[in-house]
């Protein structure tokens, strides 16, 4: 006999619901933190290989303890707050960057439902902390909040290089958020939902509903390659990765907005950068690559796709030089934004016709 799983709700089983929720949050948070730590290791190893060197080798076997050693070192460093800085904003800024980066993880579906038996009842638990019906908007909003941290860091440091970094990031984020936001409008149009779970579910069908090509899933990367390209380029700009790492362009602005930061506060910026990288990879996976769908078990597919994305970002960093400020603006406003708009119009026409 097959039991229909029941969905946990707060009103019917409050204790079980709360418990499961806390476990989910803890798991998602710890896993993300672990990936953040080892993303730095993976980046150093991968780029090292690409650049004919070894990367970390000395700390632990094959340098595997390097992220932990780095973390410990930064944790025990003296925490300097410059005398001329605005101390409250200075302390607040790194938190304001890190928090949104982690919060976005809350709405991302990692896999299908997890079933478990409790008290004779079969419950279904979605592998997602919460399925907001405006999930995608929430992520865009959180990405927008992250900018405040950078701007605040730039202003509060009271340093000219930090200020320039802050100004650059403001302009960059505003320009690219528009392009990114518009590029994913087509996803809402196709899936007719903003819930990330719904978007993933829509991508599990065969491509364009055609049975003849049923081996190709209906991932939006196949029907919206332009939107995918715009999204990836735009998100690289939003998370300050090379070639768009202007706000912290080391060779120009020393360290940009985090020039004056030290110790754990600096580590928070660093963690935020990698957490953002994970978030962006996860969102791209969810929107364009069919989320957890694929040949393996749910969340394994998801993680593989996320790692593939992160590898791509790392690879780009090893390959490309940095754009200039005016070229970045040109690319954002005069190329990506019109392309995204054209894409929306074309998709609209296509939906109307078919």
């Amino acid at each position: 006999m097959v039991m229909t799983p029941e969905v946990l709700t707060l009103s019917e089983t409050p204790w079980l619901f709360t418990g499961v929720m806390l476990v989910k949050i803890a798991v998602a948070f710890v896993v993300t933190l672990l990936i953040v730590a080892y993303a730095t290791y993976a980046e150093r190893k991968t780029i090292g290989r690409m650049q004919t060197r070894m990367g970390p080798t000395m700390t632990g076997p094959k340098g595997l303890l390097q992220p932990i050693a780095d973390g410990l070192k930064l944790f025990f460093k003296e925490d300097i707050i410059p005398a001329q800085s605005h101390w409250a904003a200075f302390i607040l800024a790194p938190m304001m960057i890190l928090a949104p980066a982690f919060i976005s993880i809350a709405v991302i579906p990692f896999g299908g439902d997890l079933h478990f038996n409790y008290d004779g009842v079969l419950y279904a638990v979605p592998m997602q902390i919460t399925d907001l019906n405006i999930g995608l908007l929430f992520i865009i909003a959180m990405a927008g909040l992250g900018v405040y941290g950078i701007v605040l860091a730039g202003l509060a440091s009271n340093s000219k290089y930090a200020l320039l970094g802050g100004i650059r990031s403001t302009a960059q984020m505003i320009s690219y958020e528009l392009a990114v936001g518009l590029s994913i409008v087509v996803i809402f149009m196709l899936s007719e939902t903003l819930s990330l779970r719904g978007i993933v579910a829509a991508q599990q069908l065969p491509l364009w509903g055609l049975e003849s090509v049923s081996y190709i899933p209906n991932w939006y990367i196949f029907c919206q390659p332009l939107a995918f390209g715009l999204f990836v380029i735009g998100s690289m700009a939003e998370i300050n990765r090379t070639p768009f790492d202007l706000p912290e362009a080391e060779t120009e602005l020393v360290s940009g907005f985090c020039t004056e930061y030290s110790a754990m506060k600096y580590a928070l910026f660093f963690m935020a950068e990698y957490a953002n990288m994970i978030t962006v990879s996860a969102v791209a996976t969810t929107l364009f690559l069919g989320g957890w769908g694929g040949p393996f078990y749910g969340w394994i597919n998801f993680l593989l796709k996320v790692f593939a994305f992160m590898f791509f970002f790392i690879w780009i960093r090893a390959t490309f030089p940095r754009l200039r400020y005016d070229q970045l603006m040109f690319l954002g406003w005069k190329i990506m934004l019109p392309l995204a708009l054209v894409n929306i119009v074309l998709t609209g026409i296509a939906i109307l016709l078919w």
Partner: protein
Amino acid sequence: MAANTETMTINMGPQHPSTHGVLQLILELDGEIVVKATPHIGFLHRGIEKLSEHRTYHQTIPLTDRLDYLAPMSNNLGYVLAVEKLLGITDEIPERVQRIRVIMAELTRLKSHLVWLACHALDIGAMTVFLYCFRERECITDIYEKVSGARMTSNYFRVGGLAEDLPDGLEGDIRDFVESMPAHIEEYEGLLTGNKIWQKRTIGVGEISAEAAIDIGITGPALRASGVDWDLRRDNPYSGYEDYDFDVPVREGCDTFDRYKVRLDEMRQSTRIILQALDKLKPGPILADCPKVVLPAKQDVVNNIESLIHHFKIVTEGFKTEPGEIYQGVEAPKGELGFYLVADGSAYPFRMKIRPPSFVNLQGLPQMVEGKLLADVIAVIGTLDIVLGEIDR
């Protein structure tokens, strides 16, 4: 409401990741646009010119290593050629010495250009090129180490010859390395030349016209990228450069991209020169037959009273020159490196004036960056290929 705007003065350097040492630039910024750029130099001043006035001619050679420390053998070469000219023994330098000097000078050009490309690319954000270049530079430092015992401050050339002959088997090592070099240059070009971002960052950036370049006195690749066909190796040959068949790359673009291309082509030409020199290298003496100037062999010092006296005189008081003044310029990797020596007949130069190419080329910086963006300043500092050891002396 009229906006109240003012420019921001920013202090770039001497502690800054990409001012190539201790250059300080006072930049006046209007937003990201550079209104005024003023280079401040002198943080690395060691008084090499003054120090040389209290040293015998031989004792100054190690100081020249520390001028352009990325191209020590070029400095050695310029200096010893100047002293030889002052002594009038230029024609007595053995052929083997001249060949080895050319090989070393061209290896030095490769070495210097590799560091330039590495840092230039890193400044613009292409990190991988940096490590690729340093991989090849490592081979050159190894060769340096084998001939002179030092990886950077070579102190290898002597007035009248060389400190030591090449160690056994080194010719083969040099040939292997140099033959592999063109493929590596292709590799760097593969990462950069066709790269759209690299082109955007370099084409039309830091332009300087041929007239302006000549007015300032810019030399070297920076001049040749502005369309002026001038190379001392060909136009005023020294050390037997007239025996080699090589091209002088010239381009008309006047910008950072063309300076990049010119330097890469120069690296290819350097490999040609080295291979020709290796082919022409024959066994022979490595010191000129000038007993008043050149230290005798140790064997002679212990067996021969004449040699003992020469050895004693040269070591204790150095050799004396006729009074006079000469100028000798060489085509160093960064441009024309000149040594102007005034001798008063003693064992010390009365005055030594160095014409460092970086110092002169740096003067082009303000007009190349003013009105441009902050990021272009970085690109221009990179493309000028300055070394502060040479600018401050």
